[in-house]
């Protein structure tokens, strides 16, 4: 128990007095993951929408496919991307390996199926009258989509938060295509993995605690904004 207490103390110290190096790592984590999720969300939700309203055959099988992609380990995504980006690989000339851009791309691949699957679940739950009413009142297609998204905003927010949680907490991709290079591509999770492999468990938990606290702030802020915007959910 003593170990736990001193760990929490260490975490608080890290949070309060964290040096520039720590904050650089934290910043990198959030900037990569926020980029990944913001770039993925629009496309994934549009796909989810078209699966829900497109009425074409094979929707079930496509959904099952995306659902099973949820089970792909991050290190496999990392490996896959590595094979593509490696110097002799098809995209080797882009020299993206071991850069933040590669991490962003990997995390986008990771959260895409989550956003599609959960976005679909949220959108299909919308009353069909949302679509019908918007349509009959003359809304153009893009506005109909926005209207439906607004009606199921809580479900979509949950999808986005889940996707964000997935990417900010992943380590396989960052390790594999980021490379955990100090000062360049080291983020919180690869730093935690490193501390762990050193046997510095307290340091690892403390870093996790830093991540958790910041994620909590972000989430609480989002939920506060949402409640301000007159949602009754």
């Amino acid at each position, binding site marked *: 128990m003593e170990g736990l207490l001193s760990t929490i103390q260490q975490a608080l110290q890290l949070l309060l007095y964290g040096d520039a190096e720590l904050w650089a790592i934290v910043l990198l984590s959030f900037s990569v993951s926020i980029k990944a999720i913001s770039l993925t969300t629009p496309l994934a939700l549009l796909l989810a929408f078209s699966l829900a309203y497109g009425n074409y055959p094979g929707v079930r099988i496509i959904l099952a496919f995306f659902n099973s992609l949820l089970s792909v380990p991050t290190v496999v995504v990392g490996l896959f991307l590595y094979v593509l980006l490696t110097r002799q690989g098809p995209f080797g000339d882009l020299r993206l390996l071991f850069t933040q851009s590669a991490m962003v791309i990997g995390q986008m691949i990771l959260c895409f199926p989550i956003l599609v699957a959960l976005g679909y679940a949220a959108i299909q739950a919308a009353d069909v009258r949302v679509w019908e009413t918007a349509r009959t009142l003359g809304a153009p297609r893009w506005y109909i989509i926005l209207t439906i998204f607004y009606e199921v905003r809580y479900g979509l927010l949950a999808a986005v938060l889940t996707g964000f949680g997935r990417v900010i907490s992943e380590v396989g991709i960052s390790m594999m295509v980021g490379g955990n290079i100090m000062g360049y591509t080291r983020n919180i999770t690869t730093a935690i993995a490193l501390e762990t492999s*050193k*046997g*510095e468990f307290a340091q690892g938990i403390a870093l996790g605690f830093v991540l958790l606290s910041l994620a909590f702030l972000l989430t609480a802020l989002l939920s506060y904004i949402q409640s301000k915007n007159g949602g009754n959910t």
Partner: protein
Amino acid sequence: GEPIKLATTTSTENSGLLKVIIPYFEKRTGNVVHVLAVGTGQALRMGQDGNVDVVLVHAPKEEMRFVDAGYGLNRRSIMFNDFVIVGPDNDPAKIQGQHDVLESLHNIAHGKYLFVSRGDDSGTHKKEVHLWKKAKLKPDLSWYREVGQGMGRVLQMANELNAYTITDRGTWLVMRSKLSLKLYVEGDSLLFNPYSVIAVNPERYPTINYLGAMSLIAWLTSVEGQNLIKNFRMKGQPLFFPTAINN
């Protein structure tokens, strides 16, 4: 009886040595061994916490500290291999054939050629840090990449980045065919890499499998164990050299 929990570094596990020799031990003694392959620091930490019965690592200073602090007993050196310096096939630092490892490090640092470091406090990393210190060099981030990953991954990254790095010979032999890197520096006595096995102190943790741990240590240092280590081949090459018995 209860399985013997052995914490070891990824490099020993990845070389395939344990997979080959442990079954002989299990057959002879009827004991079962659970191998936990983790980082050096983590392996020692698991021993310190009493969650494993015996550790097999290569970080002499840490091992001494571990024993001195009373976490471990009966440290026995069982084998060694060596470190080598590898680098891109055009060898921009011109270190090929050098026998003085410190000099080659000077070449790399002065030319600011990329160098990938494990950066994970592992045995290999400690050795590397020690060498830089000895060479009175201070690496900086413009050419020195501290990546905090396992040996195999570091080799891959060095390959990808056209960089130099230091590696244990075992991992190098395993990975060599997949890399365009070349081996440049070997044989300097500074590159010696000894492995030891340590039993976790039963005084601290009376319920751990001390007997099992000791029987494993005994067997590893026995003629049979040592011979198996000596005869282990990786891609046709000997990898580890037994040190417990001179023969």
